[in-house]
């Protein structure tokens, strides 16, 4: 008999006499009216830098970050207007720019889809994420309720890459970006 059949048969036998446990209902959360404040606060607590900006302001920040850089890697969803630098492969780019699917206030996270790309989110040492204001969810639960049809890979990023594996000292930018900027677009 193959492993699958054997394993399932053993499970059924083990569970035959066992009382079945019920699946609890999903919890109801008291939601903040506007999750934006909480989102920006949590981002800061996670060690990321968050801003609420209009198109103009976002472009100004982008240009400021891009000062002296030879180019950037862009996610597929990043609009033309937000690509001030020449495009570089993510392996070489000092800056990655992504377009987030949504954001979550409760945890201070941006959700990045594989449809936007993956390398630009991971390889450059600085990562700038753009997210539309309407796409900031108060809680993870609500975000998941609205996104049952997931892309092949979804990454929730909640701050810069970090590790305390060397003598319990916190080091940033270990494998992924050491700086995370999030711009919420009004």
């Amino acid at each position, binding site marked *: 008999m193959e*492993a699958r059949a054997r394993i399932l048969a053993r499970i059924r036998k083990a*569970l035959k006499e066992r*009382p079945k446990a019920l699946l609890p209902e999903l919890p109801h959360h008291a939601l903040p009216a506007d999750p934006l404040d909480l989102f920006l606060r949590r981002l800061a607590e996670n060690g990321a830098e968050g801003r609420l900006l209009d198109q103009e302001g976002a472009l100004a920040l982008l240009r400021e970050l891009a000062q002296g850089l030879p180019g950037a890697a862009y996610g597929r969803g990043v609009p033309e207007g937000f690509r001030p630098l020449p495009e570089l492969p993510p392996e070489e780019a000092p800056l990655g720019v992504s377009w987030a699917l949504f954001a979550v206030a409760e945890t201070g996270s941006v959700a990045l889809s*594989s449809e936007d790309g993956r390398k630009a989110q991971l390889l450059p040492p600085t990562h700038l994420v753009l997210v539309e204001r309407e796409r900031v969810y108060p809680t993870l639960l609500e975000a998941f309720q609205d996104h049952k049809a997931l892309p*092949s890979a979804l990454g929730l*990023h909640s701050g810069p890459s*970090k590790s305390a*594996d060397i*003598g319990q000292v916190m080091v940033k930018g270990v494998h992924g970006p050491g700086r995370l900027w999030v711009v919420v677009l009004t």
Partner: protein
Amino acid sequence: MRAKAKRYPKEAARLLRERPSVREAVTGATLHFERNRLRAYGEIDTEAWRERARRVKDHVLTHLDHYLELAEGRLRENGVQVHWAEGPEEAHRLLREVVARHGVRRAVKAKSMLTEELGVNPLLESLGVEVYETDLGEYLIQLLGEPPSHIVGPAIHLTLKEIQELFHGRFGTPPDAPPEALAQVARRVLREAFLTAELGISGANFLVAETGTLALMENEGNIRLSTSLPKVHVAFVGIEKLLPRLQDLALFLPLTARAATGQRLSTFVSLLQGPAREGEEGPEEVHVVLVDHGRTALLADPEAWEVLRCLRCGACLNACPVYRQTGGHPYGYVYSGPIGAVLDPGLLGLEEAYPLPYASTLCGACQEACPVKIPIPRLLLTWRHRAVEEGLAPAWERGAIGAFARVMGSPALYRLLSKALRGLPLPQELQVYLPVLKAWAEGRGPLRPSPRPFHELWKEIKEEARGG
């Protein structure tokens, strides 16, 4: 991994003697984790979260066949190739095939305790594949040739000085290089590996049945890279890792992060549905291996099955005063600390692991920390009871305890013997002659009978109280 759990008492004593720095490093790190957990638990209605999590896990485990089949179907629809493995043999066969078919020369690995169980690294090395552990802590212990010492922080037993020496010898960094500089060196080596590996290997924190989603948590980004850059991704998933609904992740991801490191969510969470779609970056081929390796036997155990709720957060290790003394190595198997003490006997068989349930003070700190409320102290007693019943405790110990019980059960006999102990010209070091005391006496001062019996002292106190 070959289990050495039977040797726990000897290994623990040896480690305390030979590597005193471990105790300091582990105590410091676990206390730090523990403070963070307490702060993070304080922010939420922890009792409600833990109770809900316990109930969801119990539901999945009592409907495990249903959810496994559901998950398998969804994974296939997503284009994932699903395999089932009883244990290392089938896991190895699959890896051999993948290595041969894709001409794999180099593999990058994300930290996973299950791959430790299955001995994935030695297998790949025997096939001539270069394996890179990409979690920084895991990479350090790979360089040292050591197994992980903690479920979440595999290298917490190492001091900065030891790591500086390691990197000095290996990469020629200055002997006092700061952690940032050491991390930069590791980053350079591993970045090269990410970009050239043909195979990425990971475990999974959760597998959502409803959507066929693998959920992986981390802080460094190495899991995102290991599962994104190589053209083939193989994930080994224990069959107990299932969750019913996508929304259940909204509870389990933050709860696990709070329990493990005191974060509201780990820095990176990867939710993987399958290979890259048309025009996307990502692996061309994704394999999920559903692994039993002792789990169905535990599920069938009416007294011990609750350990299968475990999320591998490590909170019980951090809370445990016994684990803090030595870290994970003396436990002799992949899972150490309180959860190891109740999981390893189930996975390995009690005969291989019977000393582990004794490695506890039964203080209950582990149960209070556990995000899924596993009754660890009760399970410790269950395994201890079985060890005695099965005659696994040494014969002289059982004989001595039997004799002790007889003496303590008879006041006359007790008086007679205690008088004899005081009256006889006994040597200073009683334990030399009483093997039953030898283990206890190691690391303690010599045992001597009290100069006066307790019942005399007690009588005196009572009389004094009456008189005064």
